[in-house]
């Protein structure tokens, strides 16, 4: 895929009643980057993901995927431009088998003119790393929590995106499971996948992120590398000081 940025938000705003979910947000994610977004609860992290994917519509501002303006585009068309999203709560289809869950995004395969091999390789990395069998007929509802999370990530990768937005991938996981998730995401990134992660677990953030964006009250509060962000007194005050 071409373009200076894999994903870009320009002055994006969204309110829910009187609550500011996103206010004049400007975000640029370069191809191949692994970016973490942190912020206290209610900072607008999940809303920003929903806006980028079109699940929510921005009230103002523009969103670009590989320099295509997708602001008015329906979610499925944005996904076809190469962006995938997993949600904060696990949303694999519990009544469908693992195999069928992984098959849902597959009809989009034909849309990708290039990158099939890279996408397929990334999916293989995820499935092997997470210990998931793509021919497994077990109902997803019977999987333990961490495997459901991993299945949700693998489902998105089955659509062969080049950029994924992952919302709290390690929520509710043990340290071992978190470390395994970290390892797989790093491998995927090493294979060219652009990854944007919302995460509260600073151990995870420190071990994966090159660049961190701090959101607060719907605004971008700070951007920098992990050391800069964790050393910033204001960030500590609004977020890290409370949480850790």
């Amino acid at each position, binding site marked *: 895929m071409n373009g200076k940025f894999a994903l870009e938000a320009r002055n994006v705003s969204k309110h829910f009643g009187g609550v500011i979910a996103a206010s004049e947000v400007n975000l640029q994610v370069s191809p191949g980057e692994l970016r973490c977004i942190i912020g206290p609860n209610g900072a607008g992290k999940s809303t920003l993901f929903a806006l980028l994917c*079109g699940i929510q519509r921005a009230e103002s501002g523009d969103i670009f995927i590989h320099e295509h303006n997708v602001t008015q585009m329906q*979610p*499925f068309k944005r996904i076809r431009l190469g962006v*995938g999203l997993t*949600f904060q709560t696990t949303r694999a*289809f519990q009544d469908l088998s693992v195999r*069928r869950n992984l098959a849902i995004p597959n009809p989009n395969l034909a849309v990708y003119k290039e990158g099939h091999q890279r996408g397929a390789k990334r999916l293989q990395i995820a499935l092997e790393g997470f210990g998931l069998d793509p021919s497994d007929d077990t109902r997803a509802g019977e999987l333990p929590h961490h495997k459901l999370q991993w299945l949700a990530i693998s489902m998105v990768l089955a659509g062969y995106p080049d950029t994924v937005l992952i919302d709290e991938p390690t929520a509710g996981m043990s340290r071992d499971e978190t470390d395994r998730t970290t390892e797989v995401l790093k491998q995927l990134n090493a294979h060219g996948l652009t990854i944007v992660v919302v995460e509260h677990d600073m151990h995870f953030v420190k071990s994966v992120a090159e660049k961190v964006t701090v959101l607060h009250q719907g605004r971008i509060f700070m951007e920098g590398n992990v050391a800069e962000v964790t050393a910033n007194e204001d960030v500590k005050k609004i977020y890290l000081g409370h949480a850790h």
Partner: protein
Amino acid sequence: MELDPLALSLIYQFGTNAAFLFLAALGLIVILGMMNIINLAHGELMMMGAYVATIAHNQAGLPFPLAVVVSFFSVALFGTVLELLIVRRFYGRELGALVVTWGLSLVLGQGTFLVFGPFMPAIKIPGGSYSYGSFSFSEYWLVLIGISIALVIGLYWLYRYTKYGLQARATMQNAEMAKALGVPTSRVYTLTFSLGAGLAGLSGALLAPTSTIAPFMGQQFVAPAFITVVVGGAANVISGAVGSSVLLSAIKTPIGMAFGAFLGTVALLVAALIIIRIMPNGISATIQKLMDRRRAASIS
């Protein structure tokens, strides 16, 4: 070996009752069972199918099977327009959908009355009948039983093995996640509602030769349709509706034959009440739970 005519009649009545319940519920299986829309215009969609088939056959001279196909596509097209203009505004708002479809049922019933009058000459029942002992068996009802079985297989195949089926099941379970996986959910909703409407029209057309063709004929199908779908449950709407049709028919048929049609219907209603009390999520959820338990036991 010679079959007892009474036993044969019992089997035949069981088959016709089950086929009637399944056909009455056919469109609702999709619209209520999958989409969770309480469609009170279901009977009127069936009525439209019956009218289209009657006009196509009696007035345009089309062969009856072709008239049935025309009914399916006509009512499906009407369903598409309905979904695009009205129904899509009420997804996730069950009470709103209930009121709007009820209003729609009144408009369709009264509109048909104004345009076509209080009744229309019926379609002659195709085929003849067989006699065995003191009982006679309609060839057409035997065909309807066969069509019902074919429709079960067709629907199962559609939702189990096609791209649309997988996307529809995903969309109905979690539309946001389906969107995030690139599924065009608006299109899936429109297609699914159109299919449900078309199937209601198809059922109306198939049952037209067995009914009086009148603007309010749909009302006779609404109660059996809702009972069949609710008793069947939403865990697996197709197997649920089949299980429910078979079980309710197995209760209604012997009681109806022994004590008359009225008490047969009463038995069906009582049975539905008891089943819903014992299995609040329907037959399909209970079957699913039993299968899960068996699988878990076999693993451990």
